[in-house]
């Protein structure tokens, strides 16, 4: 089973989704829950079988698809992708389990299972074409979720989401083709394997162009300023389940791809663009936090807060040292858990009142104490309180970048201030004060379905905040090998000094070919 566990993880949900068409519509939800639980258990088994001492790829599978062009179905995972995959299957599971009364439940379940295939596929793919395929396929279910179950502006929002990210991906595809061409030039054979590409040393000007091409694809997905405007619409119109998965998993594709592609393939370009990107990250952190503060709709606050946090992740990634990159990968998990939970929480109140305007609420703490407690914990996690999950990632990301620049980190560090401002003021508006609106007086507290979704998230947020070691160690190992490769491959003096040389020689991968 272990030999094909990744294929099982990727295609089991897709197969199950197809079988789902014949399931009776009343039992669709139960069916979805069963499938997603099995998937989650397999992903946990993956973690169990994962050897944390190995820094490279594990569970690799390879099937040739187009031998002439070296396109293979090549999958494998390391410490960086492992936990994002587990998170994806976890969120699909609790997402389906917590679904309330939705119209066309069967279609929604099937869509979610398809989405799960694409998510796992993206994070497991090691061949650029396979990666690209899953990357683009993931747009379709999300388009459908927003377009079919969304709010009043759903068509506009879903089309915007699709076209915007699709345009970016096309530029990325061109970059991939060019990269393969360069590989062919250097070695005489075609290959789309990312691992083979890692071994290629490129001249700096090629690196810069390729970096830019990939950057556009990734930046729109993250989304980075100024490519972020699709996100508020998508979140604003998406149903709760769509927002949860979008924020928790889909956004991570962009930041993950930076670590999988941009850093190890173009280390010199990464150093070259480090400061411009750091400035974009600062804008993301401060500007979107201020925009979040101005919002009247609580879901938009969470949506903009996502962008702000993604800024910290980007900054950690471009710290280009082990501390920073490990922190940013950890923060991907942390942000996934916390923003996913926050979108669930916003969904809870939307289900009851059918509005997300903060001015409609006030005093909810006394009406719904359990809801307020969990919201409070998640808010504090989002603000980056130590011993909750986000702090670990934020601390390490900022710590890492501090070695590159003091001023940039000082500016980016304002994340902990501006984050507190918008979160606390929104919390105050919605939960504190007297109950002024009669409609809020008798709102029921969390029901069992909501508790199923929220309590595990709360437990994870605390557990990984207090004891991050189980996932920090594997991430750390894999990141070490990435940093080592980058240092080894880099050609400019500046890159050699900016990317630290690690002592651990056992992880060394030698670059093979060089484009002249």
């Amino acid at each position, binding site marked *: 089973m272990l030999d094909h566990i990744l294929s099982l993880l990727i295609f089991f949900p897709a197969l199950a989704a197809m079988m789902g068409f014949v399931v009776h519509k009343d039992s669709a939800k139960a069916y979805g829950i069963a499938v997603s639980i099995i998937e989650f258990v397999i992903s946990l088994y993956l973690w169990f079988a994962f050897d944390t001492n190995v820094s490279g790829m594990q569970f690799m599978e390879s099937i040739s698809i187009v031998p002439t062009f070296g396109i293979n179905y090549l999958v494998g995972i390391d410490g960086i992708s492992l936990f994002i995959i587990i998170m994806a299957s976890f969120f699909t599971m609790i997402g389906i389990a917590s679904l309330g009364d939705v119209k066309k439940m069967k279609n929604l379940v099937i869509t979610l299972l398809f989405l799960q295939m694409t998510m796992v596929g993206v994070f497991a793919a090691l061949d650029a074409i396979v990666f690209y395929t899953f990357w683009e396929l993931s747009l379709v279910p999300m388009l459908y979720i927003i377009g079919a179950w969304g709010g009043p502006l759903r068509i506009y929002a879903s089309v915007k989401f699709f076209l915007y990210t699709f345009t970016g991906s096309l530029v990325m595809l061109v970059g991939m083709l060019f990269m393969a061409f360069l590989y062919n030039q250097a070695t005489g054979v075609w290959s789309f394997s990312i691992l083979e590409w890692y071994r290629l040393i490129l001249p700096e000007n090629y690196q810069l162009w390729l970096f830019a091409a990939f950057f556009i694809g990734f930046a729109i997905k993250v989304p980075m300023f100024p490519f972020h405007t699709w996100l508020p619409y998508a979140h604003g119109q998406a149903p709760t389940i769509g927002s949860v998965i979008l924020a928790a998993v889909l956004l991570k594709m962009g930041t993950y791809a930076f670590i999988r592609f941009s850093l190890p393939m173009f280390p010199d370009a990464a150093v070259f663009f480090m400061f411009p990107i750091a400035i974009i990250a600062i804008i993301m952190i401060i500007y979107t936090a201020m925009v979040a503060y101005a919002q009247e709709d609580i879901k938009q606050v969470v949506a903009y807060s996502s962008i702000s946090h993604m800024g910290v992740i980007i900054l950690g990634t471009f710290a280009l040292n082990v501390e920073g990159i490990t922190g940013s990968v950890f923060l991907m998990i942390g942000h996934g858990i916390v923003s996913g939970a926050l979108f669930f929480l916003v969904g809870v109140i939307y289900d009851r009142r059918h509005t997300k305007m903060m001015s409609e609420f006030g005093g909810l703490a006394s009406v719904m104490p359990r809801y307020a407690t969990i919201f409070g914990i998640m808010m504090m996690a989002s603000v980056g309180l130590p011993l909750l999950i986000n702090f670990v990632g934020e601390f390490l990301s900022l710590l890492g970048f501090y070695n590159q620049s003091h001023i940039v980190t000082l500016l980016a560090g304002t994340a902990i201030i501006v984050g507190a401002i918008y979160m606390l003021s929104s919390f*105050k508006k919605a939960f504190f004060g007297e109950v002024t609106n009669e409609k809020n007086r008798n709102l029921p507290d969390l029901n069992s379905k909501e508790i199923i979704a929220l309590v595990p998230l709360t437990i994870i947020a605390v557990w990984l905040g207090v004891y991050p070691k189980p996932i920090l160690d594997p991430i750390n190992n894999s990141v070490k090998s990435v940093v080592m490769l980058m240092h080894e491959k880099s050609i400019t003096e500046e890159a050699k000094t900016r990317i630290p040389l690690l002592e651990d020689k056992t992880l060394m991968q030698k670059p093979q070919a060089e484009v002249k």
Partner: protein
Amino acid sequence: MELYLYIALFSPLVGALFAGVFGASPKTLLTGVVNSSLLFASFVSSAVLLGYVLDGHTVHVEMMEWMATGNLYIPFGFVVDQVSVTMMMVVTTVSTIVHIYSIGYMDHDKGFNRFFSYLSAFVFSMMVLVMSDNFAGLFIGWEGVGLCSWLLIGFWYHKEIATWAANEAFIMNRIADLGMLIGIFLVYWNTGTLQYDEAFKVMPTLDTNTLIYIGIFLFVGAMGKSAQFPLHTWLADAMEGPTPVSALIHAATMVTAGVYLVVRANPLYDTIPEMGLFIASLGAFVAMFAASMALVNRDMKRIIAYSTLSQLGYMFVAAGLGAYWVALFHLMAHAFFKALLFLGAGNVMHAMSDELDPFKMGGLRKQMKGTFILMTLASVALAGIFPLAGFFSKDAILEVGFVTNHYVIYSVLLITAGLTAFYSFRLIALIFHGEERYKLFGFHPHEAYKFMLIAMSPLAVLAVIAGSFKTTYFDMVTQILPKTEYHIHSEIVEWVMILGTQIFVMLAIFYAYKKYVNFKGEDKEFEKRLCYKILINQYYIPYMYEEFISKPYRELSTIFWKKVDLKVVDATVDCIANGIYKAGENTREMQDGNLSSMLRWMVVGTVLLLSLAVAFGMAVRYADEISAVLSGLGA
């Protein structure tokens, strides 16, 4: 001994979780009793550890790993040494008393269980703060007390002003925490570790500039928690929380965390005396600045809060001038009498149905004999009258200023001592003496529960006798703190100074008493004066913060959203998309399927292609000439 360490540290956490389980349910006396006993257990363990430390041992444990990546290694490590055990004793003593007191104080509150949960969680965070053996652990506690402070200031969350004050406190502390975080980063990248002992060992080898930066950034963190200027406004507003909270958090423990940090980092601050002088000057400034605001204020709790601020200034003077043990000693003595003062104020508030204006009280000593005695005692100690605790600790700070030749700082502190005595006894006179003005407002004061007074009495005892610990304490802490003693060489000067200070303070007390004991009503003339207006408006600082920081931030946020994000960034995206769409829309008539128009377009296309071919051909043929012309243009 490790067992005692864990009991001291974790029993408050157990209490917090226990009470948290009953958080939303109606009041159960059980939570109050259980939490108080757990706190008492923590106190006893701390006392055992104190005994152990007095014998010359220290305890250092590493519980488990927290974060490790790259070269970074951060454990949950705890140390009980001479400094942390002092802090532990202060924290557990005051918090046990406040817990017991709160059983009475929060008696009729709906959030009784929730209150105890938060209060115990605070104690846990504070213990983490003082017991951690590394900067990251310190930061955990640092943020933890911030969170609990937020929860407790905004405890009565239905009150708009309370939640506002809670947010203000949290955000202002966050500003300072950024400084702290940067300080921690600097420590890590320069020393390679965050453990106190290892980092401080490396520090002397670093260059002075780096050390100064580390010193500055860590001190910015301290300024936030200890509410030093200009981050001081939150402390007075924090008085919206329940009074036991003010006693525990905003007087005795959390606000002293900044002082603790400077004391803990003494090997660092010892190497950068310039920074130390800055800390001392700021401390002296804050001491006087805060005391001046207390002079005219009409809110009992705010007066005590300003007094706390002022006393924190004293502590920073001592710490800044290198007299770490003196700072820590004043911290301890202050914790006792200030907590006592606050709890007394809590009794008065209960008696007066939450009225805070001392102008509406008067003559309460008949109804509230116990509270009267306790508060008077605390005020005498605060004023620094021999032989109470304040005399020993405060006089030591004055001596430090004098001996180290910082006469400006010395005189500022001396004047402040007079101001302190004045506002303290203004308060006592207004509340307990003179006419019974409260009758006009229809209050029916009553004394607090007896057990609350009994709970307060240990603090009173400590406020009286804490001075006698001085020698033992000095011998203990100077094992790890610089062992500098401050003696004035000439005995005559010393006596003159001590007596002079005492007489000066007595006069201030006498003056305050005289002025306010027969207080009839507000002095309208005085209130029209500029200096009164400045002081009652806190030097207009909160107003300026609102006008020049909060408001612009709010407005800029709205502009960013409505104007920049929607009208510029998003509009550009839509504009590009619309452009493409319009281009398609406009050219669609080309494909209308009409034969004659298709032919027309075909002709246009052919002509276009042909002319392009001609142009290209010409360009190739005359390539040399063209480049010659172009290079001519360039030259």
